[in-house]
């Protein structure tokens, strides 16, 4: 249970990392050869990319923790934290680091909905894991 949960969170972390650069890129990505990333810093969505990648890193670490330490408290804490990260991922393009305002910009058309959907998935996986682990082990261990 904990291993499959860890794998799920880990996979979502990897997908999340590549979403704003490869899968549903923010404005200016993928970078043409020889372009400096700094040139894109003027776009509002560049901040979205940075925050998302930070959250993706944390998600990856949580997934790894749930995969390596299968003891109930760690897996439970990992899945609870993943659910929290899911909320942050949803809020990133909407409020924390909003994407560009123009409705035709690639970040608004693609990155924003993709991050919201990934955030919902992370919230669902983390939430389900938290509930199931609590049901299975929580009562016994007093969590």
């Amino acid at each position, binding site marked *: 249970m904990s291993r499959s949960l860890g794998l799920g969170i880990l996979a979502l972390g990897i997908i999340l990392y590549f979403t704003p650069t490869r899968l549903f890129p923010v404005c200016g990505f993928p970078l043409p050869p020889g372009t400096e990333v700094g040139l894109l810093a003027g776009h509002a969505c560049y901040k979205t990319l940075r925050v998302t990648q930070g959250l993706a890193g944390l998600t990856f670490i949580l997934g790894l923790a749930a995969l390596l330490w299968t003891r109930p408290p760690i897996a439970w804490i990992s899945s609870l934290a993943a659910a929290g990260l899911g909320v942050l991922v949803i809020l990133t393009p909407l409020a924390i680091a909003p994407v560009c*305002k*123009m*409705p*035709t910009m690639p970040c608004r*058309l*693609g990155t924003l*909905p*993709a991050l*919201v*959907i990934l955030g919902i998935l992370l919230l669902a996986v983390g939430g389900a894991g938290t509930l199931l682990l609590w049901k299975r082990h929580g009562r016994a261990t007093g969590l």
Partner: protein
Amino acid sequence: MAAPPVFDLIAAHLRHRPVQSVILLLAVAIAAAAVFAGRVLEQGRLKALEQSLARLGADLVVVPRGLSQATEQAILTGQPATFTLPRSVEAKVQSIPGIERTATQLFLKSLTNAACCSAGNLFLVAFNPESDFTVRPWLEDHPDRPLGPDEVLAGAAMIPEPGDTLRFYGHTFTLAGKLAATGSGLDLTIFIPREGALRMARESAQKAEAELKISPEEVSAILVRLQPEAEGGPPAWKAAYEIESRIPEVSVIQPDDLFVRTRQNLSGLLTLLRGVGGSAWPAAVLLLGLTFALSVNEQKREIGILRALGGRREFIFRLVFCEVLALALAGGILGLSLAGGILLGFSRLIAVRLHVPWLWPDLPALGLSAGLAFSLAVSAGGLAGLLPALSASRLEPAEAMRRGEL
């Protein structure tokens, strides 16, 4: 002996074969999702197309010869198109019998990466407030608010709100209002009164990073409204033919014709969804039917035991039939949720990538599409489950147990 609850047995059976259950669930979900998404995308495209052409308000659009495609793209996607015709062509068009009224528009585009423009590469349309059909509905809705030369109207998808200022070629305009959504390029267009556009062009040499050169004697398109056919007016195709043969330097776009052509010209994704929707349903029926027929065959011993323990034929029928139906129901719900989620998030991206105008269909149409997709999923289960359920219910206990051991 009391019969065990059907749903407990079904749940246990599905859990016992997770891979098979998931594959069948996905098969039904894909069929339902393809039918739903295909219909919603198609309905949204037609709604946007209808709204865009209604917004144009013209029976014919006259443009320079050979530029009808560029104009159609500008109307449908908002991709700026700039070209001109001598204004004198309007008088020639007006002289053709059956023409009720005309209006001219001049197409411009804002400068890209220039501090003198609020946004780059925007489609700007200079219009004549007295005669224009496109923004007429807004003007009619606001009779107490005549549009000043430095006031502009914006398409529904533009970010600025009424009262905000916008700069084009160094000239500052005030946004007077926003037009209703059409889902097309018109939503990304700024409509500037002709007088204001000419003033902007005159000042651009001093104020802008590049001068805008337009002449008061130039227009880009002439919108034509015909006399109604009931009052002796010509059909649109005949008037278009008449204009093109009398004025060789122009091409004529017939909005009705554009509607029919765009409707017929299905883009790749819509064709694919139609194909998947059309073939996935029979495939799902076949897959479910075959899988459950095999499953009944494999479980003859269990069925025999159930019958020997007092399970009636109806109970066995219900058991098999409800299992297929439960999978189909769950698959339908999953497919609709997936397709709905993807459309909710990515509908605009899909429309932009397909270069088609798009608006969410009305709620009844949306409900009908969801209902149709769900009914197809459930009927796939019903059809597929019928034969295996019948064959399972007809087994005699002793025979079933004997065959099951072979």
